[in-house]
């Protein structure tokens, strides 16, 4: 199957496969910018939609941090923008829970799944493996538009009268299954579940395409062990998604039947104040948790792996050294992907799980430390004695490694079922997953954007703004989440609306105010990035050479502004792996350079 056939599946018979130039297609505005089937345009659509969601999701966190930092203060302007959800300038408990829930859902799924792997899998897979486009460009387009539909439905849930869903991003029943359970469980939850179902479809369409493209459409000479690590990471991400999202969907389907058709999969022995006893009998809420976390844990790696892959690539390019332990990097990605499916019950240690079973999950969870440590050592040894170029992308990549270490270490604490009895549902958990999964993956995403922006738009982003963005964000990330570890160790529970009425947690009032203040500063600094991004698309410094970072991978052999089809003429052939930096005293040797006669053998 040739790449040309994929691009032309809808254009009927054609004979010549040689010397196809794809830049002369006349395209309307609609087919170029809206219903585009070009993977590069779809990537940009995912990225910009993801950025809109990141701003909204971030703003939500600022609003609920306002409540946590200043529980006694009144902000009349809040009533102006939120109306009845902030009566008298004070966020109501219902609004607080809705904000926390939507913040979680949006950031986990819409920003760090669709925005991250949607963007970079689409953009990098065809360009780095040497393909004209995805295996099915049409499915790829559908993937984006399902995501867009999911976004619209989720956005609309914010505006319904009873508010968006407010039972936490994990949507545990009975809060998610019974409309009478809370205001947010009414139509907000219906919209939430419709939105998530659309999102699952989007993820599956995208993931299937990524897998098929990577396995089937690599250019001549591009064997699997010559792939850049970005592609390996995106491959495992897609495999995780394709195998785990359907399980989440089956959990949601049972939930829909419980909600709307009176079944009792998750419900039993429930009495609701004002409604009375419910007839549901024999259901188990824990069943939902099993189905949810069977996706939920791989989801963590769906978020993290693309960042790991991009960071590996960016660290190597900007250290001017080959990545240390290429095969070990692939092996550890593989190990993480396997273990991702075997640890879900560590989210459920305190649900009455059999302690013996719990100990098995402790062991499997702690095993993840092994491949994670391999990756960290390899990143550090790649940096070691490198000729480091501190580009903004490189800074964010190094920041990722720092955050991954700090957040990963607390994972070893939480993976112990005995410690988890104390730490479960405290701010310790909040600190852990925000650092290791949230902020770290955001850093991977920023690294990717700064690094590949020249390829995306043919212009550079502004470095000064990027440096301000980096330093304030990394300092802010630690200042926000580090103190939460102490709060969590002291037992401060997550998701509480107001700590000032608790004797044990009053002492943290000043610390909470400090965290909220930093959160607001960090949120404001992101506008440096947003301005930089959109300004640079139109006014940034132009890229004048094909390969501005002196990198080896194939995307830098394409024209500065590649058309649909990526390479005019033949797709380049590959003769070596992606990491020949500093080999035989040569700074870099692109993958398209044939192996010389007197070249040394080892990488």
């Amino acid at each position: 199957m040739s790449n040309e056939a994929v691009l032309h599946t809808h254009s009927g018979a054609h004979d010549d496969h040689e010397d196809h130039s794809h830049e002369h297609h006349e395209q309307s505005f609609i087919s170029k910018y809206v219903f585009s089937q070009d993977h590069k345009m779809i990537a940009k659509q995912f990225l910009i939609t993801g950025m809109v969601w990141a701003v909204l999701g971030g703003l939500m966190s600022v609003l609920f941090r306002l409540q946590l930092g200043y529980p006694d203060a009144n902000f009349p302007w809040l009533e102006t923008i939120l109306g009845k959800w902030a009566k008298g300038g004070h966020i109501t408990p219902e609004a607080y829970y809705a904000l926390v829930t939507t913040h979680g859902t949006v950031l986990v799924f819409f920003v760090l799944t669709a925005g991250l792997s949607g963007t970079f899998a689409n953009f990098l897979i065809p360009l780095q493996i040497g393909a004209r486009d995805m295996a099915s460009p049409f499915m790829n387009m559908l993937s984006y538009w399902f995501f867009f539909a999911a976004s619209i439905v989720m956005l609309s849930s914010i505006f319904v009268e009873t508010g968006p869903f407010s039972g936490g991003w994990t949507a545990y029943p009975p809060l998610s299954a019974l409309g009478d359970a809370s205001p947010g469980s009414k139509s907000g939850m219906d919209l939430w579940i419709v939105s998530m179902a659309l999102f699952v479809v989007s993820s599956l369409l995208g993931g299937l395409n990524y897998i098929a493209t990577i396995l089937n459409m690599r250019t001549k000479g591009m064997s699997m062990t010559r792939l850049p690590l970005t592609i390996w990471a995106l491959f495992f991400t897609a495999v995780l998604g394709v195998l785990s999202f359907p399980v989440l969907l089956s959990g949601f389907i049972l939930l829909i039947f419980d909600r709307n058709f009176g079944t009792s999969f998750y419900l039993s022995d429930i009495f609701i104040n004002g409604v009375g006893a419910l007839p549901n009998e024999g259901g188990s809420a824990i069943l939902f948790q099993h189905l949810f976390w069977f996706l939920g844990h791989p989801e963590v790696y769906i978020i993290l792996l693309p960042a790991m892959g991009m960071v590996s690539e960016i660290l190597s390019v900007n250290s001017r050294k080959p990545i240390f332990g290429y095969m070990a990097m692939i092996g550890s990605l593989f190990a993480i992907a396997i273990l991702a499916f075997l640890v879900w019950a560590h989210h459920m240690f305190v649900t009455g799980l059999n302690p013996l079973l719990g100990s098995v999950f402790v062991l499997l969870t702690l095993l993840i430390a092994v491949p994670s440590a391999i990756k960290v050592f390899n990143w550090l040894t790649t940096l070691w004695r490198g000729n480091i170029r501190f580009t903004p992308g490189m800074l964010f990549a190094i920041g990722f490694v720092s955050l991954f270490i700090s957040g990963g270490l607390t994972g070893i604490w939480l993976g112990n079922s005995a410690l988890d009895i104390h730490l479960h549902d405290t701010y310790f958990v909040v600190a852990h997953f925000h650092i290791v999964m949230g902020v770290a993956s955001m850093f991977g995403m920023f690294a990717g954007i700064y690094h590949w922006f020249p390829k995306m738009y043919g212009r550079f982003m502004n470095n000064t703004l990027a440096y301000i963005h980096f330093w304030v964000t990394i300092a802010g990330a630690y200042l926000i989440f580090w103190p939460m570890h102490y709060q969590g160790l002291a037992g401060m529970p997550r998701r509480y609306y107001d700590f000032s009425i608790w004797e044990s947690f009053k002492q943290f009032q000043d610390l909470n105010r400090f965290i909220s203040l930093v959160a607001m500063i960090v949120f404001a600094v992101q506008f440096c990035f947003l301005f930089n991004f959109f300004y640079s698309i139109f006014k940034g410094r132009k890229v004048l050479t094909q390969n501005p970072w002196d990198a080896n991978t194939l995307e830098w052999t394409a024209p500065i502004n590649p058309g649909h089809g990526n390479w005019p003429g033949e797709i380049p052939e590959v003769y070596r792996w992606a990491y020949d930096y500093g080999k035989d005293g040569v700074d870099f040797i692109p993958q398209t350079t044939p192996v010389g006669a007197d070249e040394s053998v080892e990488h």
Partner: protein
Amino acid sequence: MTTTVPRNEPQRIHPHKFLMWAAIGGIVMMFAGLTSAYIVKKNQSSWLQFDLPIEFYYSTGVIVLSSITMYLSAIALKAAKMSQYKAMISITAFLGISFLLFQYLGFKDLQAKNIALVGPRSNSAASFLFVITFLHMMHVLGGVIALIIFWFKAIRKNSTITSLISVEVLGTYWHFVGILWIYLFLFYNWIG
């Protein structure tokens, strides 16, 4: 389009065929999740025991038959026997619709025996049977719609340009939903 042969490359599986196999992997996970939930639930209290309706036995036979006709339609297309291809593909679609009908009658049968599938009186045993079977029916329905589209294409163009690849991809899917039903049928009988 089926004539495009990669140059100087080892023969790889067609990306669309591969896409189907990967999608099947996803669907398998979905039903694995549901049947695991079924097992978990069965081992808890108040699980209703009942026999499968007789219609499910008929539908099993029908879906096996339809797999054979699907297979024959691909052979006919390969041999460029268009009339035979059209006949076989329409019989497959018809058998698919009959399968759906039998499943529906099976549900009716259960309700006639006073076993509620959904609603407040329902037991999880019947609800699980209904939800899992219903989801499988949705997958069969998707296949039936694809078959009808293929049939329309075949009578409209009346030529041999119908892509063999896409018929083979559809065939893979059709055999898969058949095997999936046989798995579910054995599962209900053996575990439930």
